[in-house]
């Protein structure tokens, strides 16, 4: 059992860099751009989770399924009703938000009423929901992977030597817009203030007349909608299949913790950070340990900055 087993995969990549000089910088920059693009998508999924997990303290394991349903429903719409992608995008987000609303109304609200510890029971109920959604969509949509017809040509968009798919740019643009919209609505609007009040102290919030049930259902629906947006945006880029959500959930939790609970901007920056780190690791260290990086970063953050990289340190 040689001790070097750990490092052997890195050697060829490191030698490669020294040899190629200038070309290396283009490749490095391309890798960073790759990281930013996938990071944007991570951010959107995490942004949805940061409202539910971060603000409502519900460990939402069904978040991946909202992402998958966003893609599946968008695919269904393009196949049947009206094949315009943008209509399908909007329609699937609304439908998944309705599903999120129902899940909150039927399950989470009842649990909250029993006053049981929401963190743990919330995790279990959402695991049940995730198993149910995953396998029902397997029944309805079948195991055949779906591809939403992309409204843009597959010709990559050229910025100097860097190549970026057109659909990616659209997805990144929508991501930033949606997140800023959500961030603005939480910071500035009345409902946003009510949300923040409820999650500071729900008893006091209800004392001052905030209908906390409405706030909870709006937060959950917003979270589901954000995840669905990511799913619908990724439909044309990556193929959507019933288990697509599983791989995404753990990454989203990692980012929410990195960005700071309930911190929208944190989720965005956390998503980009994880995207770039993973892309660089798999390019220059080794693909196998790509996911390891995410886990190690979270542990470091928990030790040194428990309120997240970008969160304010909470007073004890």
């Amino acid at each position, binding site marked *: *059992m040689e001790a070097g087993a*750990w490092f052997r995969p890195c050697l060829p990549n490191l030698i490669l860099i020294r040899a190629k000089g200038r070309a290396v910088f283009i490749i490095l920059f391309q890798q960073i751009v790759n990281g930013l693009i996938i990071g944007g998508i991570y951010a959107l999924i995490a942004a949805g989770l940061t409202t539910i*997990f971060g603000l409502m*303290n519900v460990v939402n394991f069904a978040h991946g399924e909202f992402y998958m349903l966003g893609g599946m429903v968008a695919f269904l719409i393009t196949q049947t009703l009206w094949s315009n992608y943008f209509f399908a995008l909007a329609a699937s987000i609304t439908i998944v938000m309705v599903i999120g609303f129902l899940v909150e109304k039927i399950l989470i609200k009842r649990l909250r009423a029993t006053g049981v510890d929401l963190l743990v029971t919330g995790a*279990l109920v959402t695991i049940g*929901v995730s*198993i149910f959604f995953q*396998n029902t969509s397997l029944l309805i949509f079948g195991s055949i992977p779906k591809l939403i017809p992309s409204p843009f040509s597959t010709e990559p968009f050229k910025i100097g030597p860097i190549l970026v798919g057109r659909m990616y740019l659209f997805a990144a643009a929508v991501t930033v817009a949606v997140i800023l919209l959500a961030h603005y609505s939480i910071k500035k609007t009345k409902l946003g203030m009510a949300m923040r009040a409820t999650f500071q102290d729900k008893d006091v919030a209800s004392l001052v007349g905030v209908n906390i049930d409405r706030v909870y259902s709006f937060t959950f629906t917003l979270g589901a909608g954000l995840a669905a947006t990511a799913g619908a945006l990724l439909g044309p880029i990556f193929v959507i299949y019933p288990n697509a959500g599983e791989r995404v959930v753990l990454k989203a939790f990692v980012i929410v*913790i990195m960005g700071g609970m309930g911190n929208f901007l944190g989720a965005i920056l956390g998503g980009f950070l994880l995207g770039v780190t993973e892309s660089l690791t798999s390019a220059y260290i080794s693909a196998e340990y790509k996911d390891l990086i995410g886990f190690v970063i979270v542990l470091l953050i928990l030790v040194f900055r*428990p309120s997240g990289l970008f969160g304010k340190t909470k007073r004890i």
Partner: protein
Amino acid sequence: MKVGTSHIWYVIGIVVLALLPVVIRSDYDIHIFVMVWIFSLLVIGFNLIFGYIGQLSLGHTAYFAIGCYTSALATLKWGVPFWVGLPFATVVSGFFGFVIGVIALRWRSHFFVIATICFWGIIHLIILNWVSLTNGPVGIGNIPIPSIGGMLFSTKVHFYYLTLIFVAGALWFTKKILSSPIGRAFNAVRENEPLAESVGVSAYRVATLAFVIATALAGMAGSFYAHYVTYISPEIDEFSIMISILVMVVLGGKGTIFGPVVGALIFTFLPEYLRFAKDLRLPIFGLILIMGIVFLPRGIITLPKLILSRWVDKR
């Protein structure tokens, strides 16, 4: 004396379970029972952390995997018999539990949950990629079957009794601990940590002790699994197994001694006997999980008390 009556129930339970293989002939059901006992070891341990200390450790299958691989590698590479592999795997998993527990238990509630997921991820990736040690994704095959003086534990019935003895031992051990001051300290930490600290209970040490016992039991379960199925691969560390453990403890009845084992019994048989539902099997399983949590927050073990009390109220 109250303890007397529960002792009788305990003995009756063991006798019934001991006679079971004589009654049920089909190897398949005995195979399921062996899996139930292996899961019981996992679940009894997990219940200590989740039911008694009140912290949710979602990385519990990592220690199951450590137990599997330690026992398999010890018996294959060093040629030690199973009876050395088993305790060795238990101790190694317990040690990993100590090292990780000391770090993870600095936090509480959802930060602890995420920390345990991270350690699970790291261990899973190391098992998957350290090819020279664990054979990587190819896994390790023909792990020796346990034997006592030439008598091979080759049939399922042998394994049924072997695992049953250890489960009974684990139950006795946890029953003893939980009725002792250590058990009271566990409850104190769960109910109100600052108050427990103020009467001299170190929440950190008590939780670490519970964590070490739990991970050691998981290692033991791993060793049994490795030598029963004789083939292990990184997939034994899948998150779906963690979900089954969670379901068994919560719907069985967390914070009770026999609840999780009842949960293990029900939720190992249920998916098998739901096979007739073919495609609907997993959606139904998801629904049962949701119903269980919403209507039975305290778990199935409390069902008799619930029915009794409701029946009494009606009269």
